[in-house]
């Protein structure tokens, strides 16, 4: 896939409405994105929150009559609990965060008895970036959840991202493990993890993808850099997925691209039993719309 719009096209082609339960569905961007998806026929919004506050938003007018539901729970914590419960019980397919703090929202998602994270699963975050300067979608992880992923978490990040790539019709994605250099050095412990992971992949211990690292971003995404440096890599400067060593690096990478390179993105929480959309309030309606479309595909992938 080259653009996020192709995700929308594929979501529409599923020919069914994905039920999205929104916790505290009281902000404009979220409602606007849902209204668009609902009008295009691939989403059935279940808006949980204060009926009065939801109805007072202009975007509520845009919702297609009879093709959505509002559950009136004015208390934020109770609304969030109900949204998680509905997804867990199968009354909804996707969970989405509305006008509530990410910490409070994730606390409920992570709750051992009521939440959506299977025992021992690693929670992470993968997003798909559309970049005018790259010839296809680029998936990156982890921009939002794991501050300093260890070896096990890095492998989980790879597996989650590969699954998302598969949902985007990328059959055997090329995964680059990103560092500041392609050299392996004990002075940079992430490069040691990367050496182990790329050898594990070579030995078939990580399946369904081609993995190489350490690589810097140039070597991962630019074939001419490989030639200049004389580095051999099975990724050949054509990465589908970039795994970053820590949250600061990944976060700065995507935000820099949003701001300076006209990037657009769609991302999802990873590791949960059902897709979970967490977007910050500052993200655009457009980004939220793409996230919703992506969640429809990921629901099918499970």
């Amino acid at each position: 896939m080259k653009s996020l719009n192709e995700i929308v096209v594929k979501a529409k082609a599923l020919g069914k409405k994905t039920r999205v339960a929104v916790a505290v569905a009281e902000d404009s961007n979220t409602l606007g994105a849902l209204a668009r998806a609902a009008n295009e026929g691939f989403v059935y919004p279940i808006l949980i929150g204060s009926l009065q506050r939801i109805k007072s938003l202009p975007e509520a007018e845009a919702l297609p009559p009879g093709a959505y539901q509002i559950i009136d729970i004015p208390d934020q914590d109770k609304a969030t609990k109900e949204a998680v419960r509905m997804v867990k019980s199968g009354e909804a397919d996707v969970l989405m965060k509305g006008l509530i703090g990410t910490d409070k929202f994730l606390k409920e998602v992570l709750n051992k008895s009521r939440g959506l994270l299977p025992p021992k699963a690693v929670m992470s975050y993968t997003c798909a970036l559309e970049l005018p300067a790259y010839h296809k979608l680029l998936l990156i992880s982890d921009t939002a959840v794991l501050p300093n992923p260890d070896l096990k978490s890095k492998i989980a990040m790879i597996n989650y991202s590969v699954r998302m790539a598969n949902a985007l019709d990328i059959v055997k994605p090329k995964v680059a493990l990103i560092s500041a250099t392609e050299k392996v050095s004990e002075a940079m412990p992430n490069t040691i993890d990367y050496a182990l992971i790329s050898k594990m992949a070579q030995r078939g211990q990580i399946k369904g993808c081609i993995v190489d690292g350490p690589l810097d971003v140039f070597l991962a995404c630019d074939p001419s850099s490989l030639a200049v440096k004389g580095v051999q890599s099975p990724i050949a400067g054509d990465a589908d997925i970039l795994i970053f060593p820590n949250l600061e690096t990944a976060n700065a990478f995507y935000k820099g691209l949003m701001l300076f390179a006209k990037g657009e993105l769609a991302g999802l929480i990873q590791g949960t039993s059902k897709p979970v959309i967490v977007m910050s309030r500052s993200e655009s309606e457009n980004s939220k719309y793409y996230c919703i479309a992506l969640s429809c595909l990921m629901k099918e992938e499970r």
Partner: protein
Amino acid sequence: MEIRKLDQMFEVLKSQAKKRLIAAWAIDAHTIMAVNDAVEMNIIQGILVGDEPRIKAVCAEHGIDPANFSIIHVDNDAAAAAKAVEMINAGEGDFLMKGLLSTDRYMRAILNKEHGLMNPGAILSHVTVAEPKTYHKLLIFGDVAIIPLPDLKQKVAITNYLIKVAKLLGITTPKVGLQAASEQTLPKIPSCADAAIISKMADRGQIKGAIIEGPLGFDLIIDKESAQIKGMKSEVCGDADCILFPNIEAGNVFYKTLVKLCGSELCAIVMGARVPCVLTSRGDTERSKLYSIALAAILA
């Protein structure tokens, strides 16, 4: 010329200028006879450092002509080791050999910070070259004698020594197998983890001049069929020139198995000092001592 049999080392040496061996505390029949064999074979020059009357008595007893050697008189073992090392540093010899003194004293003279043979930061290690009867070429491996549990940095140094020895034996691009408990990359098993890291370092050109693959079980390193059964596609498998062992126990058991159960000939060398150092033990055969001298002469 690629050396595929230990005997071929002699041919190579005969065609070269003779390297000068300095034997420290060479006052016993084992050492003197080994040096004498090499001198009479015309592959080295021998310099014996030790108690001159005792050296001459041993020569007389074994029918050896003392004129085959230069003899430097020193009357005790520690002083002989120090003198031998001093002569190497002065350029009066090309490589060192241990005589009747203890390994401990010999190593101490080499490792001495002021007067020894070590460059700062250098790692001393032991490399064996064996001629297993059931293998189609020589096998170069380490460390079976000096570093008990090498860390990553030491393993990289040992790997480089193995490659250096292989190249000096005429192998253009040596194949190195990194031995581990399994060919799987099991991060919690140090032999597997370090092998994976070293193999990646080689991919990145941080270790040069060789084809390196690991982690590999021992069977996959030396037997192509085992590798095929396990689906391992590496040109190292079944055709390795060099083996890096993860620890001294693994290497030492392999070394002794070759000698005691397989009747294989082998020789060894200490690498990492400014010159190669021969470290034979009294248990070694005459032939093995001669091969070790030849190997050191090739490396010197």
